[in-house]
């Protein structure tokens, strides 16, 4: 890698981080309205956010929707991927293509498609329904993460387990599942954070009672940005940072990011 490449990469990375840095600076602004540079410094926005019932409720709903969607993906996605592994050829490809429909269809289109169905089913506005929608559009992340773990499995380990006297059930439980755990972990964490920060689907499928933090922030932005919103943004940045640091340590992320098929 040449110095030129490294320099370009550095500039691009700084460019991409600049808005976040600015958000961080303005999140400790003591001013009433948001303006650069801040005239006063204060941690007040962070505390005020947690005292503001509306925003705190929205943050908690976001976390709940993210967690529920991740759980749904795990419960529905893991058995599907294990079953899919035993299919071959065009059928397997067709099933996989169907299960990753959430990637193929743009979020803006999926959102209105789900809106129509939710109205028919009468579940529009429910937070659980939002979690289901988030699970539907983000399921591919779990499938890919588990698939890359599956591809990296050393089958001789399972064969060894069988020759050592473990039943197929115990082999699955004690050998296969632990080797899938990193993939499941990575996929689940990704879906959790994507769900908690999702905007497009959330803004279409929530009402006043179920609005998540990004939706509430969007509403407040129209009446002008405040330091409290910057603080709310920083909560998300920190959440994303924690998740990223957690998963970059796992080998599963490497397998997922550097996977062979593209």
């Amino acid at each position, binding site marked *: 890698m040449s110095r030129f490449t490294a320099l370009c990469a550095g500039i691009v990375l700084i460019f991409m981080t600049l*808005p976040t840095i600015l958000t961080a600076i303005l999140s400790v602004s003591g001013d009433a309205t948001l303006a650069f540079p801040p005239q006063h410094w204060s941690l007040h926005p962070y505390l005020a956010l947690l005292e503001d019932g509306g925003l705190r409720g929205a943050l908690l709903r976001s976390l709940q929707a993210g967690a529920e969607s991740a759980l749904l993906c795990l419960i529905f996605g893991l058995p599907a991927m294990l079953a899919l592994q035993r299919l071959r050829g065009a059928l397997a490809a067709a099933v996989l293509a169907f299960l990753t429909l959430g990637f193929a269809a743009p979020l803006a289109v999926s959102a209105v498609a789900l809106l129509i169905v939710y109205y028919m089913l009468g579940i529009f506005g429910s937070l659980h329904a939002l979690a289901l929608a988030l699970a539907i559009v983000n399921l591919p992340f779990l499938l890919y993460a588990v698939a890359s773990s599956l591809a990296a499995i050393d089958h001789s380990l399972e064969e060894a387990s069988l020759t050592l006297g473990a039943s197929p059930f*115990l082999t699955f439980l004690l050998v296969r599942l632990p080797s899938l755990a990193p993939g499941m972990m990575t996929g689940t964490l990704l879906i959790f954070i994507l769900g908690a*920060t999702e905007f497009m689907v959330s803004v279409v499928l929530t009402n006043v009672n179920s609005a998540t933090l990004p939706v509430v922030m969007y509403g407040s932005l129209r009446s002008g940005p405040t330091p409290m919103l910057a603080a709310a943004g920083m909560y998300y940045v920190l959440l*994303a940072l924690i998740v*990223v640091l957690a998963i970059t340590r796992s080998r599963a992320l490497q397998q997922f990011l550097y996977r062979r098929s*593209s």
Partner: protein
Amino acid sequence: MAMPDSADPAVVADPPALFVRLLGIADRVFGGGQIAMPAALRIAGGLLPAIIMIGVLAWGLALLFWYSIHSYDAFADQSGPLSPIEYATLLWAKGAGFYRTILIRTVLLSLLTTLAALVLAIPVATLIIRTRSNLLRITGLTLCLVPFLMGDIVRAFGWLILLGREGLYGWLSQSLGLGQRTLIGSALGIWLGSLQTIVPVAALILLPAVRRIDPDLEQAAATLGAARWRCFVLVNLPLMAPGLVSAGIVAFALTMTQYAIPDILGGGLLPFAANTIQNVFFTEGNIYLGSALAVVTLAVVLLTAMVFALGLGLLRRWRAGVQRRQAVEIAL
């Protein structure tokens, strides 16, 4: 079981007896996993819940399409007869210029964003793959993943205070005596904001493609007389092409259907397709026209993806053909 030398770090404590007992019981309950169940049934059992879940979306998409090919009876607020009228309103009828402008703007800005994002993503992906420093690699990955994961609104918020009148840009221009300027409401603002969303995604998709390029190939090219830029054009770029196409397809699809960035950074002045879908659905309450617009958006995305993929295929075939002709020439 007593171990002779418990100081040996390789000696691991036995699992608790209770755990082993429970495993044994579970094993017997499940018959060792050898339940007499046809394989097809087991596979179907694993797949069915997920298929039903995704089926909700498939159903919704089918309904979208169904609505889009019907006219809307505004008086009765119900479905009219089968008709291409919604598409006509969007694309070719008199007065369709409004929607055509939006579609063209969306496609053009998306193409520009995609192109720039691919160019900018290459050095980032190269840095992450090739650096020998683990710290640099983790930093690069983190700086790509965090903006990807923190959500549209937080990203848009960051740009709002960067480019806004009250933000860094306004302050800088004020300090330089140019008056308090803003890039909010300009195409440039939308472009910059979109780039921050798309560059990390493109870089992450490029990672496997860059990783597949053996660094020895670049060194070989150098010993064979290729300067660095020629090596990049003749070796790295062709080898990255499939990754660039996948990244391009995803980047275009994501930019094309953005909502928050054009809405917030465009100041509502430069709506994209997604903003217009929302508008038609919620403000005008016309799900028939909205559905048609959603279908058109989806069609543009899919068509572009096909064009990208086909283009790559044609390029490869052409190149293979040239090489074969040259090879045949020397055999004569």
